[in-house]
């Protein structure tokens, strides 16, 4: 691959509610065994991008722990590698990342010292599979300055949360509106860009010279007329996690056989940090239906239409329905949980009831002491 990767993973989103207290969105656990950044990291390594920078800022503890070794994604090579850049104070900069463009600018040395001609910029909060080589090939064919990977949203989904693009017959972007009041197209930007490295350096430096900091507003939108900006339409599954509902539904999508097989059984694989956990254990009273169960779980109760992350313990006579139980959760006996997301490392006392009513997903955060119940 003739590109390096940049993953923007610094963001937070208040619509993730309490779930974002603990971690950046890029570190949100997805589909039982993964964190959301795994999808982009796996796509990069599967596209043979060997040098990847992850820009983090908000609550990066979980993310840094997750990325503490690059071997899971096969980045620990002599050529290239995985770089995690948090804001750092230098003689000529004393700021946090003031925006996505600023985050790249503060690490412009990474771009300047590389020799690969192209850069793939992606976000850490999307669940998808994509071979960036295909985007790059189209980028070169169209002689584009910037290529934006776009996705046609299904009917009924709110496009105003995204950057909405309009394209001409050739796929060239003729209009781009960031989070418009009213969307006049269903085609949205996925936040994945391909751009020539020297051009990116030039645009980012120009942007910084004008004290502007945002990649979308101050770099992409500014040049939507003067540069050749093309769309690459992604046909397959793509979802990004920006609200609790998105997060819940993205996880539940994995109970769908086609989606599950697309991610889990079709080459190439999605990689994640491997824990040394024993297999899941089902005791005699366990009853599990239509659920994803991860390693290290011990199940005594009833689980339906749910996703259990690693190392969950479910007590006797528990009923867990239509819920997501994040990793390392202990659920005491006789507990009823329905339409909930239970935060990681929680300890739920015996005989508790948590039910999300009226289609609302309830976020359960119970930090009880673990072993004195």
């Amino acid at each position: 691959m003739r590109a390096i990767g940049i993953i923007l993973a610094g963001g937070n989103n208040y619509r993730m509610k309490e779930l974002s207290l603990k971690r950046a969105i890029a570190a949100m656990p997805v589909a039982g065994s993964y964190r959301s950044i795994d999808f982009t990291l796996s796509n990069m390594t599967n596209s043979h991008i060997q040098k990847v920078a992850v820009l983090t800022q908000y609550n990066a503890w979980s993310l840094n722990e997750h990325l503490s070794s690059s071997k899971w994604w096969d980045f620990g090579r002599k050529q290239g590698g995985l770089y995690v850049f948090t804001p750092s104070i230098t003689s000529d900069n004393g700021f946090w990342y003031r925006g996505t463009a600023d985050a790249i600018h503060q690490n412009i040395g990474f771009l300047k010292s590389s020799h690969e001609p192209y850069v793939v910029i992606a976000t850490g909060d999307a669940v998808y599979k994509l071979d960036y080589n295909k985007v790059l090939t189209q980028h070169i064919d169209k002689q584009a300055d910037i290529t934006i990977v776009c996705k046609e949203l299904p009917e009924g989904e709110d496009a105003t949360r995204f950057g909405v693009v309009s394209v001409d017959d050739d796929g060239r972007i003729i209009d781009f509106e960031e989070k418009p009041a009213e969307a006049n197209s269903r085609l949205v930007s996925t936040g994945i860009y391909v751009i020539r490295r020297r051009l990116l350096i030039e645009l980012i430096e120009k942007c910084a010279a004008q004290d502007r900091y945002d990649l979308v507003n101050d770099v992409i939108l500014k040049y939507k007329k003067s540069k050749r900006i093309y769309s690459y339409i992604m046909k397959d599954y793509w979802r990004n996690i920006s609200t609790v509902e998105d997060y819940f539904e993205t996880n539940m999508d994995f109970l769908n056989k086609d989606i599950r097989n697309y991610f889990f059984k079709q080459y190439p694989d999605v990689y994640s940090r491997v824990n040394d956990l024993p297999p899941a254990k089902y005791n005699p009273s366990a009853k599990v239906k239509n659920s994803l169960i991860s390693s290290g779980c011990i199940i005594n109760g009833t689980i339906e239409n749910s996703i259990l992350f690693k190392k969950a313990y479910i007590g006797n006579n528990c009923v867990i329905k239509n819920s997501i139980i994040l990793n390392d959760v202990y659920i005491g006996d006789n507990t009823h949980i329905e339409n909930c997301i239970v935060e990681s490392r929680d300890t739920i006392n015996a005989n508790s009831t948590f039910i999300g009513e009226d289609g609302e997903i309830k976020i359960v955060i119970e930090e009880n002491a673990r072993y004195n119940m």
Partner: protein
Amino acid sequence: MIKKEMIAMLLAGGQGSRLGVLTAKVAKPAVAFGGKYRIIDFPLSNCINSGVDTVGVLTQYQPLRLNAHIGIGIPWDLDRNIGGVTVLPPYEKSENTDWYTGTANAIYQNLEYMESFNPDYVLILSGDHIYKMDYEVMLDYHKANNADVTIAAMPVPIEEASRFGVVVTDDENRITEFQEKPEHPKSNLASMGIYIFNWEVLRDSLIKLKDQQNCDFGKHIIPYCFDMGKRIFSYEYTGYWKDVGTLGSYWEANMELIDIVPEFNLYEEFWKIYTKSDSLPPQYIADVSDIEKSIIGEGCQIYGKVINSVISPDVTIEEGAEIVDSIIMQGAVIKAGTKINKSIIAEKVVIGENCEIGFGEMAESKLSTKIYAFDLAVIGENSVIPDNVKIGTNVAISGVTELADYPNGELASGDYIVKAGEVQ
């Protein structure tokens, strides 16, 4: 100069012939155990958990799977700048070339490896036992006794002691007598095949006995040390220890893991067992499935019924299939409607639809009464079983079988099908 206080030598070259078709293509230490592990994970994890970071693994029989599993030792944190894990196969020498002809002979051929770490003590282990043991505590004991050799031994019921090498000790646990599989054991302390030697004592004994045919620790080295008046002590171990040398004990040890609180607990935070884990997705349990008292590995897709069973990663069990009291290894596929009872199904086996396996009266094996003496149906790796066949118990199957291999669509209890050269 490089200096390691204690290094381990792990004997992993044996076939483990009493595991029958399970070890036809793979050495016993590489046989799957407990859902996601391989037998060798237990001694390797014990080493690193005990602070022994230099391990030589002696391989000989069918080492491919073992080599691939061990690699450079990353899963056990044994990828070290100095020491770490080293796979030691037999090698060609300028004057002669020998296979490893016995346990001690194998160690003798690797004197140079041991010498390079300048050790004070050498720990000899075998790769075919399931247990958790702190070798550092054993070493402390060895030092406290000012011993030359320490042998780990465990109490067994006296009526079973005649199956083992038995040690007889004095009040201070110094060994006064050895009995190899005695008819009338004088003690119930069985040797576990785990030894700590003072380096010089080991080196000198190996050199002295280098011309001994099939030089073996239990038969030659230990008796030699004893005759030379060395201080040999017994280290009594009372925790969980399981020799998984026969199909029956292998099956039992697996089944013990599914007890509600198993005696050998893999879920403890302390003393973790490490293994090479693939990056696999979580397992999917369908709404038509039914699972009871089982452990199931990651990446499995379960649509059928699973009761009292140990299922390795990446296994598919289709709708209507029923697995009872069985061990299913990695990557196997059990198709719809097939019923499996008390069976061991090895890696990547594909079993057709509507089969019945492991049912019927026990019958004496026509293949080997020594190996196949249990109420278990055993199917070797990469085997294929066609649709609609009935297979009895105490059978062995290996290779790609077709309906024509089963007269009247049946394989009676005690019978076998072993196809040569078919396994890829």
